[in-house]
């Protein structure tokens, strides 16, 4: 059945598939964990019920998203060995310890305090519960730190040597962890996670405003999301620009593919807005371009020369059409996020934040935009790294496990069936939770269980005491 495919391609499809499913959940839970910490802190600080209600509302959604992130993440920690065993043997001495640190400093922290965060409010008291929420949020950030360091080292490897067995060996851990592309990638990804969460929260708020359920909670979350967007989207665009310039320095062929520059331009390169890249013919058909703008963006000089893929041996070209298009999807969505934030700001200024329906429709439509942008961004950077796993040093074709194509193909089918089933159910439950408006007296994740008449936590009584 899989005789026509080679094991390398199947292994890549499987990794891309399991990774794409996985990345959605951390992208959401990094942002949502921080949002929950902010909500709980605001509740403790102001004593206002609406923050507690929102906290409990989003906590239920967080529980589901987090569980899906955990189980799909465990798969990832074994996929390196099952599908990329030669990569594991060769790069393990460098990237293995970094991933061990991720487990030690992040996964245990998240898992250890998640139980307390979800189920423990009436057992540990408010202060310790706040601490648990803060530690879970911190854990999600630490996790991003290490795994992005690993990823960045594969893109811009530094601080290593090569031993007799052909293994990469660490020489300078500082140079490995803080390799040249890491700071840019970390900032870009964490901001992307915040934006993704803000868009989801904003869309949920907009949905309830559109349905005429303008409760205090719905207004609060919509307002918070719009503030987040207008503050973070411009910073993200700036961070993305700096990341691109960093990539131009260390991985020029990736930028050439993103820009669709098959030819070199000695006197200023045009910015190709759209077109159909043809890899075989090494040209972009029907290109719509603005002269010299690419040189201005990348080199801050209209006439700066920019080399094209014609300076790179063909066997080292990444698949240009994929990178070209995924990059445009990401940038386009980023600009739309900025637009939503700006429209929200104008509406707020004119007093129409909770009334102006076109804004709410826009916010609702943008709900999934963060996920799509994150996926498009990852496709850009990972496909742009091809045909290497460790950039310039270890080819993807030389990294794969000695597996028969039927084994990889059969497991790919199994992953596809079970993931689609499980994640469709998860999305359904999350959307159903979001479709209920947050309301006073919101319950936490204990829903579905008999709850004592006094309420599951002392919070309502405390809050009532604070606001007589």
């Amino acid at each position, binding site marked *: 059945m899989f005789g026509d495919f080679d094991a390398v391609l199947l292994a890549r499809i499987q990794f891309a598939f399991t990774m794409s499913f996985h990345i959605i959940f951390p992208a959401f839970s990094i942002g949502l964990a921080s949002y929950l910490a902010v909500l709980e802190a605001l509740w403790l600080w102001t004593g206002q019920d609406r923050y507690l209600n929102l906290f409990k509302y989003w906590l239920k959604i967080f529980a589901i998203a987090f569980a899906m992130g955990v189980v799909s993440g*465990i798969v990832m920690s074994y996929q390196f060995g099952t599908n990329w065993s030669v990569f594991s043997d060769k790069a393990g001495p460098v990237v293995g310890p970094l991933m061990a640190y991720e487990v030690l400093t992040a996964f245990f922290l998240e898992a250890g305090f998640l139980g307390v965060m979800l189920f423990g409010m009436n057992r540990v008291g408010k202060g310790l519960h706040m601490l648990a929420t803060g530690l879970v949020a911190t854990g999600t950030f630490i996790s991003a730190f290490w795994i992005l360091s690993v990823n960045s080292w594969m893109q811009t490897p530094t601080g290593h040597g090569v031993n007799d067995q052909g293994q990469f060996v660490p020489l300078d851990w500082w140079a490995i962890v803080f390799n040249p592309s890491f700071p840019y990638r970390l900032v870009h990804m964490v901001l992307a996670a915040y934006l993704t969460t803000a868009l989801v929260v904003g869309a949920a708020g907009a949905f309830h405003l559109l349905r005429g359920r303008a409760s205090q909670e719905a207004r609060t979350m919509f307002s918070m999301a719009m503030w987040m967007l207008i503050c973070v989207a411009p910073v993200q665009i700036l961070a993305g620009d700096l990341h691109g310039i960093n990539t131009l320095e260390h991985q020029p062929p990736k930028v050439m593919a993103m820009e669709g520059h098959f030819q070199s331009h000695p006197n200023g390169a045009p910015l190709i807005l759209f077109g159909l890249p043809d890899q075989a013919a090494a040209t972009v058909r029907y290109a719509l371009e603005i002269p010299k703008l690419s040189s201005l963006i990348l080199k801050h000089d209209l006439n700066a020369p920019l080399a094209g893929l014609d300076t790179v041996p063909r066997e080292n070209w990444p698949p240009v059409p994929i990178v070209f298009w995924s990059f445009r999807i990401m940038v386009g969505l980023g600009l739309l996020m900025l637009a939503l934030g700006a429209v929200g700001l104008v509406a707020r200024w004119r007093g129409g934040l909770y009334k102006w329906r076109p804004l709410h429709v826009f916010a609702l439509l943008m709900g999934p935009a963060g996920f799509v942008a994150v996926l498009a961004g990852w496709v850009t950077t990972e496909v742009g790294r091809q045909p290497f796993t460790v950039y310039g040093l270890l080819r993807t074709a030389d990294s794969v496990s000695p*597996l028969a194509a039927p084994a990889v193909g059969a497991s790919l089918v199994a992953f596809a069936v079970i993931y689609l089933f499980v994640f469709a159910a998860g999305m359904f439950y999350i959307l159903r939770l979001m479709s209920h408006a947050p309301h006073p007296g919101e319950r936490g994740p204990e829903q579905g*269980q008999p709850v004592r008449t006094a309420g599951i936590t002392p919070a309502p009584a405390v809050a009532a005491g604070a606001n007589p």
Partner: protein
Amino acid sequence: MSGLDIPAIWAFVIAFAVFAYVVMDGFDLGVALLFPFCSERHDRDVMMNSVAPVWDGNETWLVLGGGGLFAAFPLAYGIVMPALYAPLIAMLLGLVLRGVAFEFRWRTERWKPVWDIAFTGGSLVAALAQGIALGALLQGIRVEGRAYAGGWWDWLSPFSLLTGAAVVIGYGLLGATWLVMKTSGDLQLRALRLARPLAALTLAAIVAVSLATPFLEGKYWQRWFEMPGILVAAPVPLALAGTALLLFRSLADAHDYKPFLLSLVLFGLCFVGLGISIWPDIVPGRVTIHQAAAPESSQIFALVGVLILVPIIIAYTAYAYWVFRGKVDPDAGYH
């Protein structure tokens, strides 16, 4: 760092992580395995609640075992993972199904039975696959150069099926004794009635695996039945027999927490026995820990983190268990 055998320390670290995983996820997988014997919905709620706050942390030890192997013995990681491809993928998919069931089950009425099946079925597949993986490792895998050289069905043998069944039964015992400790009333009684035959079956499985193992490799035979190996090895079966006796007595007395603790000891002794068989190999009979070791700078860098952080992790894990100590309240579940 002369004088210190860093790879040996790492081998113990990974062994510790794997053991922590086996006993901790063992009881929560085991609880899921017992769902078919407790058909009442409320009982199932309580059973799941007894592990809901801790399962995620338990499973993290599996990631540490895999991640530690990757960091400290990348060659072994690269050989073992393709060799155990099918059982490992099955295990991962099983863990996916039962992991999401923890959350999904509470979000639906109509589909609750579906997620109950996912919970039990996923746990069964994961437990069976772990046992099969153990058996496949013990019976030896084909290695050429720095890579696995066998086929993708090599793991399947009567021996690996035996170890698969043994792990399922053993996890069942851990789950049943956990429930004896964490629940009360009718459910506790039912768990106790399940624990007794499971203890007997576990013992039978241990004996069967122990009898079969020495015939797999000449080296195992030497360790267990010839001098000087027998000096180290002999106390293990004796201690095991004593522990089994105490376990049966505590179950007969319907004791609260002793059956669980004695089951842990039973697992610990089996683990020591395994260690005696395969030491100092990391891929049994093929690759030693020193051959597979990552460069010393890699091992030391990660080991510093392990030595500082694992005690802290154990401390806050213990705290999390402490927060949810005592019997599960069947009326006011905290899930």
